[in-house]
């Protein structure tokens, strides 16, 4: 990992091993205490989504990541409990991966990182509730409950994995500030302080709910 942070290319025997080491190091850096099973789940997810065909789906406009609202609609009208679970899992997995790896690209889009955190955390939480009610699903239910509870921290850790060879500059201040305002990310807060900014919250305008 040391070599990576210096910007050089590192050969790895397997992608899974690379993600395991990188995520482990990022979790430690972010003081993220996570169960072994949940960690294995995240590493598997990263390995799976490293294949584009696992992340992108065919749409009328070509291969795209489907809107999260459509995945939620799939879950809402799933014909069976199993289909609902699969839709919720997909929603949680895609939200976590996209928020973790594409955080900086959100700056140019309407969709924002906090929306992915809310949707993903909620999907995992619903999944945990459902699975913990059945004896067969109880073990996995615990994993999803942990993923839901620590979703924001997981995103922070994945942000670190994705930015291991990236050096933050003054130009990132606004984006980091937005991430901190929207999500309360401890990582964004720490990076802002490192860039010499002490973030302060302010209020918006129309009150929604």
């Amino acid at each position, binding site marked *: 990992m040391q070599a990576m942070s210096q910007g050089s290319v590192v050969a790895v025997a397997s992608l899974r091993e690379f993600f395991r080491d990188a995520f482990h190091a990022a979790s430690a850096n972010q003081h993220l205490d996570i169960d072994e099973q949940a960690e294995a789940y995240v590493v598997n997810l990263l390995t799976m989504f490293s294949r584009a065909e696992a992340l992108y789906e065919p749409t009328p406009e070509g291969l795209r990541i489907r809107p999260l609202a459509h995945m939620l609609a799939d879950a809402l009208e799933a014909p069976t409990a199993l289909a609902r679970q699969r839709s919720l899992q997909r929603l949680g997995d895609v939200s976590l991966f996209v928020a973790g790896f594409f955080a900086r690209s959100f700056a140019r889009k309407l969709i924002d990182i906090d*929306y992915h955190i809310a949707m993903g955390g909620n999907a995992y939480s619903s999944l945990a509730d459902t699975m913990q009610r059945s004896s067969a699903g109880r073990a996995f239910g615990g994993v999803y409950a942990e993923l839901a509870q620590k979703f924001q921290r997981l995103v922070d850790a994945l942000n670190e994995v994705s930015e291991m060879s990236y050096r933050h500059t003054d130009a990132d201040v606004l984006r980091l500030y937005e991430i901190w305002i929207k999500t309360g990310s401890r990582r964004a807060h720490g990076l802002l302080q490192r860039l010499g900014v002490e973030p302060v919250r302010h209020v918006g305008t129309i009150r929604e709910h």
Partner: protein
Amino acid sequence: MVLRGLQELLGRLYDVPVDYDVYDFLVTDRRALPDFTPANDARATDEELLLAESSDGAAMALYLDGGLLRRLELADPLGALTEDNLQDYCTALEGVSHFHYSAWRLTRDAPVSLLELETQAEVDKYVATVFLIAGQSGGLYPAQVHARLFDRVRFDTDLDPAQYARYRTAHRSAAQYCRALERRFVRRGQAHIEAMLRELRLFYRLGSAAKLRHATA
């Protein structure tokens, strides 16, 4: 009678008859509300729609803060919608929207989800505001409404994660849908009203998942 005016406006826009007068179900004193904590929201807010199963179907009540209603009666948004009464108007319209949509769905034995209620309410706010402001300011399509209603907002920090995800989804989906309405039906400040209303009436009649898909297509 502000609420009746808002209800009639929604009824006309969507061609949905007013089966039940909102004032017959209105509660303005929180102490008169049934003594229970709703399953989906434990917060005390200025607007709440209470729905419960009863022996002969469903029981419904709309709570709106009395002070808010008094302020709206003094500064009626149906006469002049301004920055000063915008917040109260949005809260009241949301309540009327929830009530009108729920009553319409339930009298047709159609299910109604919290997500579709919120999505429809966001669209209702936009559409009603556009029509009110256009009527009050000479007929041109008010291009500033979308940004005002969808960009400059903040969400209650006391929302639990499920509520937050629901409100954000509804808000985002409605914002996307209303932007698409503008792209499809507005040219050089003029709206193709008939075509827009046809689309809005179709949208109103979609159920939960179909509404979400249609809004974000």
